[in-house]
């Protein structure tokens, strides 16, 4: 998945220990019960993560095992048979989770690195294997038309089914699970933690939730039993059956549409465009509240023609009410040679999309920009005023503009 601009980057647990304000460090997944003001909470949410004992495994100062034998993760605890695969002769399997359809030999793993063939049975190695957990404002996902101002108990496991050259969370998304400190947090515990932290939603995010679909499904069920919703932040690179089974359990979805050209998907993402477009259409048909993020990377996917094509496609296939976020790229991972996206580029993209008729087009990763706000498409008044992740005003009443009564699509109230 794409997380950029520092705004969605998962904070590395091992590096944030020195922050004395960090109240949600955990040991054995027991999150501290400190009472926080919203302001202090938001401050710490940007620097908090599951840490505790796992720090020792992550902080290795020398390549000497006698000095530093890491704590072994109990592999069996996190291993469950995968739900989306097909058995082949000679103990091989074909993964049916994502469009890549890895054919995996015995004792080998798929492209994602978190699924392994063991004697012809395919296993996920990341069920309940949480390597990052934070309490985030839902605006950080970003979801702007979904319970604004609410919190999401956000978690990730290692692994991803693509390899975006700009990934800001590559140290978990591109790692194998055993390379990343993790804690065992089973589905019911996820729901308990979300409730404990007054989060109306669980968010599956940071790395790529497609690769931990089984855990996501079970956690969503546990959450719903406890009255807690589920949202997912995903690249949408998933097969239709898996999409319906896994994301069918979601209450809202954010899809990173990384470009509107297949060559970009091949060269920069290591994936394909069409399956992601298919996912967006399927989500629309499933009635899932969906928002789209498009990370604008200078020179690679910021052409007027590409942006215009994207906007027309969204209008024709999803409608004019789907929120579209143009977010600012920051150099990282394997794309350090490009500059930060200039704000005028983002503004131009927004204008192109609005000119095509889209009603809710946002600019992201530029805190304080007026295009973070939600405007009524009819009377043009500000309905939700945002600065970064903070909600300054929320005026929508019963899903409508209080001035002209225009219906504003979204899930505005719990």
């Amino acid at each position: 998945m794409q997380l950029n601009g520092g705004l969605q980057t998962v904070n590395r647990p091992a590096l944030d220990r020195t922050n004395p304000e960090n109240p949600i460090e955990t040991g054995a997944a027991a999150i501290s019960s400190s009472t926080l003001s919203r302001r202090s909470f938001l401050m710490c949410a940007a620097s908090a993560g599951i840490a505790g004992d796992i720090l020792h495994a992550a902080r290795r100062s020398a390549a000497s095992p006698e000095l530093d034998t890491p704590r072994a993760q109990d592999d069996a605890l996190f291993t469950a048979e995968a739900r989306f695969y097909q058995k082949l002769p000679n103990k091989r399997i074909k993964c049916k989770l994502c469009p890549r359809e890895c054919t995996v030999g015995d004792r080998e793993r798929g492209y994602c690195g978190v699924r392994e063939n063991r004697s012809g049975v395919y296993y996920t190695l990341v069920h309940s294997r949480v390597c990052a957990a934070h309490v985030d404002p839902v605006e950080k996902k970003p979801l702007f038309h979904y319970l604004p101002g609410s919190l999401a108990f956000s978690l990730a496991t290692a692994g991803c089914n693509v390899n975006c050259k700009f990934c800001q969370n590559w140290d978990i998304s591109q790692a194998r699970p055993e390379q990343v400190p993790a804690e065992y947090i089973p589905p019911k515990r996820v729901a308990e933690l979300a409730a404990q932290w007054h989060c109306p939603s669980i968010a599956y995010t940071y790395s790529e939730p497609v690769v931990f679909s089984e855990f996501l499904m079970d956690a969503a069920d546990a959450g719903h039993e406890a009255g807690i919703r589920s949202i997912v932040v995903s690249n949408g690179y998933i097969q239709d059956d898996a999409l319906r089974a896994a994301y069918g359990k979601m209450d809202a979805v954010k899809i990173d549409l990384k470009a509107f050209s297949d060559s970009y998907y091949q060269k920069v993402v290591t994936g394909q465009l069409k399956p992601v477009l298919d996912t967006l259409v399927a989500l629309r048909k499933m009635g899932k509240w969906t928002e789209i993020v498009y990370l604008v990377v200078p020179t690679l996917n910021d052409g007027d023609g590409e942006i215009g094509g994207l906007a027309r496609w969204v209008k024709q296939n999803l409608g004019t009410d789907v929120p579209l976020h143009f977010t600012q790229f920051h150099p990282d991972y394997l794309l350090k040679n490009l500059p930060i996206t200039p704000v005028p580029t983002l503004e131009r993209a927004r204008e192109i999309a609005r000119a095509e008729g889209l009603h809710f087009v946002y600019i992201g990763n530029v805190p304080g920009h007026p295009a973070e706000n939600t405007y009524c498409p009819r009377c043009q008044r500000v309905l939700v005023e945002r600065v970064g992740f903070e909600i300054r005003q929320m005026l929508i009443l019963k899903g409508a503009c209080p001035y002209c009564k225009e219906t504003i699509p979204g899930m505005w109230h719990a």
Partner: protein
Amino acid sequence: MQLVEEICARLQEAGIRPQDIVIWDRDSTELERAGFRIRTGGSQVQCFGTDRVGFEADLVTFGSVGSQLSRILTQRCDVLINVPVLKDHDGAGVSIALKNMYGAIHNPNKYHPNGCDPYVADVNMLQELRAKLRLHICDATTACFDGGPAFKPEFTWRPNALIVSEDPVALDQIGWQMIERKRAEQGLKTLAAEDRAPRYIETAADAEHRLGNNDQRRIVVSEKHVA
């Protein structure tokens, strides 16, 4: 394992202290499964996987590849002796000397598409690997001609050979041909006919990589028979 033990013995005869020799692979469990005993500390030959010490935090890159390197490679090794096994590979065609270096990086699963081409060549271009790799000793005592890389007894034969070279490309070229000959003998299709010829070998020899020579006319195979 016997081959590795012999290499360690010869290194010690050459004056290298046992504690300065590290037998390593990606994972300690895999080493144990192969019969090695994990040994850390003391004055004996060391044996452990990268899981015990982790990977460098920084990425190193070449071409299509961006990876973290094993800290055993970066912090414990001055010289690397590569000891691959001669085997078929369902995706890459063959897995011999060049592809064995996937064991030194944190994200090998990302580099299996397209028959591992150009990824295998690019991994071998990573500076730390290229600077330290000196010798390749391929264990072809028992080799795998199909169904690899996992060991499947029905697809193995016993060439009873070691293939030794300073040039990993030449070694892979020769090893590939040995596997093709065995496949022909068994009535199997060529790897090319199965659309899995190891194209990365040619890539490793190209002008961008120059990791060695894959032109069989320029490879001298010197066979020595040992009683």
